[in-house]
């Protein structure tokens, strides 16, 4: 289940953790699109994480896959694995 409570605490793993953590108080915030995509709001990140069967796929490699695609071009719903 992905609701507002979850969105408030969920972040882009690339931008919030490890050596790639972005500066600022609360980096890697995500925006929910079409109820099935989580888009990282950091200016130079562009990673997009699909929500499949109600489960956010927060793997960095998965986010990479969709980074080059514009928000408008994202398939809805995201294709299955």
């Amino acid at each position, binding site marked *: 289940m992905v609701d507002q409570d979850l969105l408030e605490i969920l972040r882009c793993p690339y931008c*919030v953790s490890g050596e790639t953590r972005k500066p600022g108080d609360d980096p890697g915030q995500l925006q929910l699109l079409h109820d099935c995509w989580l888009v990282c709001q950091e200016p130079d990140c562009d990673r997009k994480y699909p929500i499949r069967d109600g489960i*956010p796929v927060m793997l960095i490699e998965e986010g990479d896959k969709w980074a080059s695609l514009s928000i408008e071009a994202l398939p809805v719903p995201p294709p299955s694995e």
Partner: protein
Amino acid sequence: MGWIRLILALLGLVLAGLVIYWQLIVAEGTYLGPGVVALLYDWSAHVYERIKQFDVGDEQWFLGLPLVRALSLIPAPLVLDVATGTGRLPRALLRQPAFDGRVIGLDLSRRMLRQAVERTAQFADRLTYIWQDARRLPFDDDTFDAVTCLEALEFTPDAREVVAELVRVLRPGGVLLVSNRIGQDARWLPGRALSNEGFEQMLHSFPLEDVKRQSWQMDYDLVWAIKTGRPQGGGVRPLVEIARCPACRGQLNREARGLRCQDCGCDYPIAEDGVIEMIGKRAR
């Protein structure tokens, strides 16, 4: 000398079998990388619960009950279970009648999560699963009232790296519950399983206090700890979130001079000395 070659070949086969058994069954693929660990769990997801044979009583006694007690002062606590597998810990916790919080379960094996969703369907409204690697947790710092990670650290490339993430997302004053591998098999996990002393030393290199080890199973000890620092978040929430109208239990809004009920319109003034006066004169 044909028979010598035959014996050597047989010895080679046995040796290869032992190495494969060691790498895939005992070490669960940990020396071959997290991708292999996840793949092995993907393959065995459908039989995992049958192999583990979790005992409901044990799960309540060792996990559910002590966690609920540790969180008892926090209204609606938020719990993260890393390497949640088939949802073992979420189940233990949500079965506790006193637990009124939410749980987020995270795992690297997608098929284990599928099992988890099925096996915890009755708790779906308070449970969320996320597919991600334990080494990069997708949450802001100081978010959770409790963070748990059971039977998993020794199968990650670097337990310290994972614990650093567990501690990062745990709020000060929050509860950490992890397990350390012990017993016979631990010796076959060099560089992965840590001694009790080594494990506690590693935990003490993080801002953790009150580290306590507890016997649990043949192969695992439980280790509890508290994140140091002044408790914030969690139990300390804005008053309007936790206060309710004593007349009708409606939600209260903050007004200029007091609190007003959204539902029945009752006003509760805040006196000059800061006391919220919920009994006494009640103005509309």
